[in-house]
């Protein structure tokens, strides 16, 4: 197993660093309000921005960690991505039906979905763009794939009335 790198807090600068990227704490209200602001402002183009931002965020973060503390296998890399996701408060991703070429992942209690539904009720479309993008980025890093070859789609979402959130990750 690779050496674990955790967030490091620099009190003099007010910076929390994880593998060279900034970690910032925010709550459910801000997260879903900001997402809604983007969706209202960009309409049909919002999902692409939100998911692409999630993917690039994950690629930068996890790619940096792979350089500093390389995983022994794609699976281990994916598992680290899932561990970080849960430790950082976004929910627990079940990747038992995924391999390094994609598959299906679920989140029983997704932060974004719970936050959305508790604030605004059920929405029409799945709303976990950050988790979807993050998953795609995690697979791209784990399997060393160009980002355009990985697409993660949320096919059912707690925020849209489903019991849990389901993501299909496809590798082209």
């Amino acid at each position, binding site marked *: 197993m690779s050496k674990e790198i955790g*967030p490091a*807090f620099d*009190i*003099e*600068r*007010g*910076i*929390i660093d994880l593998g060279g*990227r*900034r*970690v*910032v*704490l*925010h*709550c*459910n*209200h*801000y*997260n879903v*309000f*900001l*997402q809604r*602001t*983007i969706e*209202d*402002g*960009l309409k049909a*183009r919002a999902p692409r*921005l*939100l998911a*692409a*931002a*999630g993917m*690039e*965020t994950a690629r*930068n*973060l996890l790619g940096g960690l792979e350089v500093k503390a390389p995983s022994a296998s794609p699976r281990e890399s994916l598992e680290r991505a899932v561990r970080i*996701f*849960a*430790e*950082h*408060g*976004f*929910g*627990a*991703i079940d990747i038992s039906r995924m391999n390094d070429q994609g598959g299906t992942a679920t*989140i*029983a*209690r997704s*932060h974004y979905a*719970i*936050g959305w539904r508790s604030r605004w009720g059920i929405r029409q479309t799945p709303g976990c763009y*950050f988790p979807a993008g993050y998953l795609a980025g995690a697979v791209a890093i784990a399997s060393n794939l160009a980002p355009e070859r990985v697409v993660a789609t949320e096919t059912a979402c707690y925020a849209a009335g489903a019991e849990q959130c389901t993501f299909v990750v496809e590798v082209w």
Partner: protein
Amino acid sequence: MGMDERAVTEAVAGLELRGNEEGLIPAFGLYLTKHFADYYNRISFGLVGAFIRELPELEEDAIALLTEAGHVCAFHTFGGIMVSVEWDAVVRPMISTREDWAKGMIGVVNALGWGRYRLAELVPNERLVLEIAHSYEAVGMLEGYGKAKHPRCFLAAGGGAGLMNLLYQGDITKRPALTEDYYHEVFGHPRSFRARETRCLAMGDSHCEIVVERQRH
């Protein structure tokens, strides 16, 4: 005993918040995330960028929307923290004045990874000036988009206004329920506080400066 901001920062940092078995972080009556600055910056500057390209006359509207998200953040995050048991345990014992509430909250903010906030000026019920080093919004702007013509710390500005509104427009010290109605009552008041960012690292200034005053009509 006086407010020891650094002790507050250390105490909050020492909580070592991390996801539970469900991968969630319930704290201060909220669900927290240890999110990533890259994500917030990409989506916020993505929205502003799209407006500037396509509807330049609406740039200010995009910024107002993002600042409003900052107001919501302050109301729920700062508000939630200031009525929490954690606040009672760590910060409340050091509070003797209403201004200590602001200082205590700055101590908390300095543990959130947003940069280093300094309360440069606080005139009770009137004016707040925050100086921020390493603001994650400004740093993200410079890193990903280059030097900006205008200030870019929307969350910080909204947060500063929110702090003053919680203390001097509403009254967070009375532990109000943080409902939508209360939000509109406090932030929708015509004389409620609003912020201007007067210096920004993203514009080439040495640090960011947020000035919060009441709206004048």
